[in-house]
């Protein structure tokens, strides 16, 4: 009998240790950011020049993945950011918004340049090869997919979240598409203060 109990005990001790270890790590982790979000962004800007997020070192930035044929989320988010920057005033000068296209086939730098001119705000619009875009999207855990439409064209499903990255280039928070304007102001103010 004792011989049979020993392996059972070993398993129990191991499970308990694992559970305690998990709890301990979770307590000391920084909440929801257990999975790292973000990473270097090396793409092409709206003027056709290479862009590297390392150039923003020491300054906070926001990142949004969208496309110019986007009817709703992209214009709404870009307008909200511009409005928020206006409202915050001088401190917002530190902030850059990176609008990364998930539709690089149609969204060339020239198209993107015209598109972001609609909104104001300190925005850099980024494109690249499909592979380069995929790599950045992966780092940000962004989903996107082409959806064919009856006119022979397509629209896109995409993650419609604004990522807030702090002065160290680390993920701080998100603003979801459903959030109202005052949440933009509060969260971006906080991002600038830290």
């Amino acid at each position, binding site marked *: 009998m004792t011989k049979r109990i020993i392996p059972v005990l070993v398993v129990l001790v191991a499970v308990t240790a694992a559970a305690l270890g998990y709890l301990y790590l979770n307590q000391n982790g920084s909440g929801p950011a257990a999975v790292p979000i973000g990473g270097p962004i090396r793409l092409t800007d709206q003027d056709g020049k290479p862009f590297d997020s390392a150039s923003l070192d020491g300054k906070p930035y926001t990142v949004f993945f969208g496309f*110019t044929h986007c009817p*709703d989320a992209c214009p709404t988010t870009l307008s909200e950011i511009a409005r928020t920057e206006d409202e915050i005033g001088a401190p917002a000068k530190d902030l850059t918004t990176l609008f990364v296209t998930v539709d690089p086939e149609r969204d060339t730098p020239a198209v993107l340049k015209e*598109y972001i001119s609609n909104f104001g705000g300190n925005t850099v619009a980024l494109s690249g090869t499909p592979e380069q875009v995929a790599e950045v999207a992966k780092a940000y855990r962004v989903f996107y997919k082409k959806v064919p*439409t*009856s006119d022979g064209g397509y629209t896109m499903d995409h993650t*419609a979240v604004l990522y807030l990255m702090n002065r160290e280039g680390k993920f701080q928070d*998100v603003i979801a598409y459903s959030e109202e304007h005052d949440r933009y102001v509060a969260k971006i103010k906080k991002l600038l203060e830290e």
Partner: protein
Amino acid sequence: MNMRVLRNLLILSFIGFGAVAAWAHEFKAGDLEIVHPWARATLKGSDVADGFMKIINHGSTPDRLLSVTVEFAKAGQIHDMKMEGDVMKMQELTGGLEIPAGATVELKPKSLHLMFVGVNQELVPDMMMDGELTFEKAGKVKIEFMIEPAGTGHSMDNM
């Protein structure tokens, strides 16, 4: 011009302004009432626009919105937009959109909407643009889309 005439003119003009402000345009076809069709102004660098309206079926049988055509775009489509977590998903309703008997179906931002692709002219707020809806039972209905500012997400109904 004496003061009395001036006063009366002012009153008349106020009534006029009031009437314009309250004017949410609408169209009727059989049992269907189509309230305030509007579309968003176009953005530079983009050739899409979305359209919205309320469709009320006062009848006792369902109808179905089959298609939409406009002069200002290559194609009009009926789309549904849903959020799945943080992912925005678009779906074209190729089989049309049912308008149940006695029901109101609202096409609005972040929800059911019309999608115009290949927009061939600039759409500026306050323009009225011709369009035509085709319903299974009510047939073809000529309407006008009022153009409202882009990037707002709000129709007059929400103001």
